[in-house]
C-alpha cells in the first residue's frame, strides 16, 4: 500500500494557482503532446537501436498510456510534484538514489562528474545556526522551465501535468539545457549505454533527467516514483508524491502545514518539488 498515491481530486490550490496564461500554455503543451503521441506511435513501429541510442523516446512512455487510462491520463488538471521532508531525510542514506538507478537501469561507473545524476543527495549546514540537514535534489519540474525555453529543437518539453521530459528522438545533444538548468539536474550521456530497460530508454549523446517516474504515473495503478518508494521502504518516508493541484492531497496539505519552500525560489520557476525544513 505504500506504493499508492493519494487519491487525486481536481481542485485548485491557492499556492499553485494557475492563471489563464498558464492554462493557455498548458493547452499548447497538450496539443504538442498530441503531436508527440503520433510521433511516438510512428516511432514505436520503428526498430529500436537501444545500444546506439537510436530511437529512444521518453515521451512515448507517458503519452501511450495516457490515452486509455482516464485516471492517470495526462491532464492539466493535475500537477505532479514531490515534497521532501528534510527532518526525515537522513545523512548518509542514499536509498532514493539507489531506487532511482535500479528503476531506470542507470549504471555507476565511478566518475561522479560524468555519471548520470538524476537524483543526488546533498548534506548541508546552515551558516548562521549551524544546523545540519540532508536532502535529495532532482529535476524540480519547474513550471517555467528554463531547459524547455532554451532547447532549440523542442526536445525538452513539459507535459500538461507539469512533468518535464526530454524527447530522446529530437534531442541533438547540444547541452544548452544543461547550462540553463539552475539546479544542475540534467545529465548528458557521455558513453555508450548497455543493458537498458524498455521503460527508461537512454542513448549516448543525449541529455536526460528525472522523469518523475512518468512510466509509473501513467501506469494507471497509482504508483509512486521509485525514490519515494525506496525512501519509504527504508523507513524514512521523507518523500511524498502527489497532485499539487488537489488541495486535499497529502502533499498539498503538508506543503501548507509545514510552509514548504522551493529551492532558489528567487528564480521564480515555480518548482514542483518542495522542501520542508529548508
Amino acid at each position: 500500500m505504500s506504493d499508492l498515491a493519494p487519491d487525486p481530486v481536481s481542485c485548485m490550490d491557492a499556492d499553485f494557482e494557475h492563471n489563464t496564461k498558464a492554462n493557455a500554455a498548458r493547452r499548447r503543451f497538450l496539443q504538442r503532446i498530441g503531436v508527440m503521441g503520433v510521433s511516438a506511435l510512428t516511432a514505436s513501429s520503428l526498430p529500436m537501436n537501444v545500444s546506439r541510442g537510436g530511437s529512444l523516446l521518453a515521451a512515448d512512455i507517458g503519452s501511450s498510456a495516457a490515452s486509455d487510462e482516464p485516471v492517470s491520463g495526462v491532464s492539466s488538471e493535475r500537477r505532479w510534484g514531490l515534497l521532501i521532508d528534510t527532518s526525515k531525510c537522513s545523512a548518509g542514506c542514499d536509498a532514493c538514489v539507489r531506487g532511482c538507478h535500479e528503476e531506470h537501469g542507470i549504471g555507476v561507473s565511478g566518475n561522479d562528474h560524468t555519471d548520470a545524476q538524476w537524483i543526488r543527495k546533498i548534506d548541508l549546514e546552515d551558516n548562521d545556526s549551524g544546523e545540519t540537514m540532508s536532502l535529495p535534489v532532482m529535476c524540480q519540474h519547474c513550471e517555467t522551465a528554463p531547459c524547455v525555453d532554451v532547447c532549440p529543437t523542442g526536445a525538452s518539453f513539459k507535459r500538461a501535468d507539469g512533468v518535464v521530459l526530454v524527447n530522446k528522438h529530437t534531442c541533438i545533444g547540444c547541452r544548452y539545457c544543461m547550462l540553463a538548468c539552475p539546479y544542475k539536474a540534467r545529465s548528458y550521456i557521455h558513453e555508450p549505454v548497455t543493458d537498458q530497460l524498455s521503460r527508461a530508454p537512454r542513448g549516448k549523446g543525449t541529455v536526460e533527467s528525472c522523469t518523475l517516474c512518468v512510466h509509473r504515473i501513467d501506469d494507471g495503478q497509482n504508483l509512486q516514483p521509485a525514490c519515494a518508494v525506496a525512501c519509504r521502504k527504508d523507513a524514512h518516508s521523507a518523500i511524498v508524491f502527489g497532485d499539487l493541484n488537489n488541495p486535499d492531497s497529502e502533499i498539498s496539505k503538508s506543503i501548507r502545514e509545514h510552509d514548504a519552500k522551493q529551492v532558489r525560489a528567487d528564480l521564480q520557476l515555480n518548482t514542483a518539488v518542495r522542501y520542508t525544513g529548508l
Partner: protein
Amino acid sequence: MNSTVRYIAFKPRNVSYYCVILLCLLTMISGGYCAYMMEVSGHIITGMNNHVAWGLPHVFAVGLIVTASGVLNGATCASVLGMEVYKPVARLSVVLASSTLLGGLTVLVLDLGRPDRLLLAFTHHNFGSIFTWNIFLYTGLLLICVVYLWMMMEKRFNRQVTTIGLAALVWRIVLTSGTGAIFGLLTGKNIIDTALMAMLFVVLSLVLGTAALVLVTILLKHWQSTQVDDELQKAFNRMQLLFLLVLGIFSIVYHLINVYARQDLYVPLFTLTGGLTTMFSVVYVLTGLLVPLGITLYLLKKPGGIYKQIASSIMSLTGGFLLLYIVIIGSQNQAKILFPGKTVLASRFGDGGFPAYVPSVWEWGVGLGGVAFSFFIFLLLIRVFALIPESQPSTVSKLI
C-alpha cells in the same frame, strides 16, 4: 569604384604556401579523426562533464563565428560606409568571413552529442530559444555572404552592393549580439547581463575580425612578395586601436557590474574560478588588451612596423579566444549556488565544488581542425575565383 580594381585568382608558387596547405590538410584530418573518436566513444574521452557541458570546441566554434562576423567589417566599411581604403580587401573580407563561419559551424556540429541529427535542428524549432534564432542567423549570414560576393563580382549588380552590404552589417550585429545572448540569457542573469554580454560579443568580434583580416592580408602579400599598402596598414591599425579600446572599456564595465551583483548564479569575468580560467584572465588582460593597445598606439605615431602589426594582431586574436574561454568555461566552472546561506558538507555531484575543467587532446583536435578547415576553404576559394586585388607596389589610393 570596384571596377577600377583588378582582381585575380591567387596562385602563388612559394614553398611556404604549400607548407601551409599541407599543414591545414593534416590538421583537418586529425580534427576529423578526433571528431570521429568523440562520436564513437562519446564525450567521455573529452574533459567535459556534467558540470562543464560546453568545453573547448565551443570556444573555437563561437570564436570562429564571431571572428567571421568581425572579418566582414572590412567589406561593409567599404560598401556601406564608403571607406575607399578597404575596397581592395572587400572581396577577401567576404570570402574569409564565409570560410571562418563555415569552420565555426562545423566545429559546433561536430561537438553535438548527435551530429547525425543536424537536420532536426532545421525541421524542429523552438522559436522561444535564442539557440534556434542563432541557427538561422548563422546560415543566413552564410547566404548573405554568397550573394554579397556574387554582387561584387558581377558588374551588373555592383550598384546593389551597398544594399546587400547594409544587410550584412545589420545581420552580423544581430548575429554577434545573439551569440552573446546565448550566455547572457541564462536563468539568474539579469537584463543588464544580457545586454552587456551581447555588446561585449559585438566588440570582441570586431577585434578578432580585424586581427584576422590584418594577418591574412599580410600573409597573402608576403606570398606575392609585395608590401602591404601603407594606407591600408594605417587604416587597419586605427581600427584595431579603436576596437581594442572599446573592448577594454567593456571588459572593465562588465566585470564591475558583475562584481556588484555578486549574488548571481554565475561568475563575474576574471573571478578566480580555478584552473586555466584564472591564468587566462591575467593573460587576456596583458596580451589580449594592454600589449596590443600599446603596439597600436605606437604604430599610430610611427607607422610602418609590419612585424609589430603582426604581433599585435596575433595577440589580439589569442586574447580574444582567451576571453571567450573565460566567458564560456568560467561561467560553468564553478558550482551553482542552490542553497544560499548554507554550506555544502557532502555531495556526490560536486555541489560544493568540483575539479576544474581541463580540455582533452580530442577537443583541441576538433577545435584546431575547424580553424584549419576555415583557412583551407579560404585558400581554395581565392585560388579558384578572382578575389584578391592584383598586387601593385603603389599606394591603395591608386588601386581604387
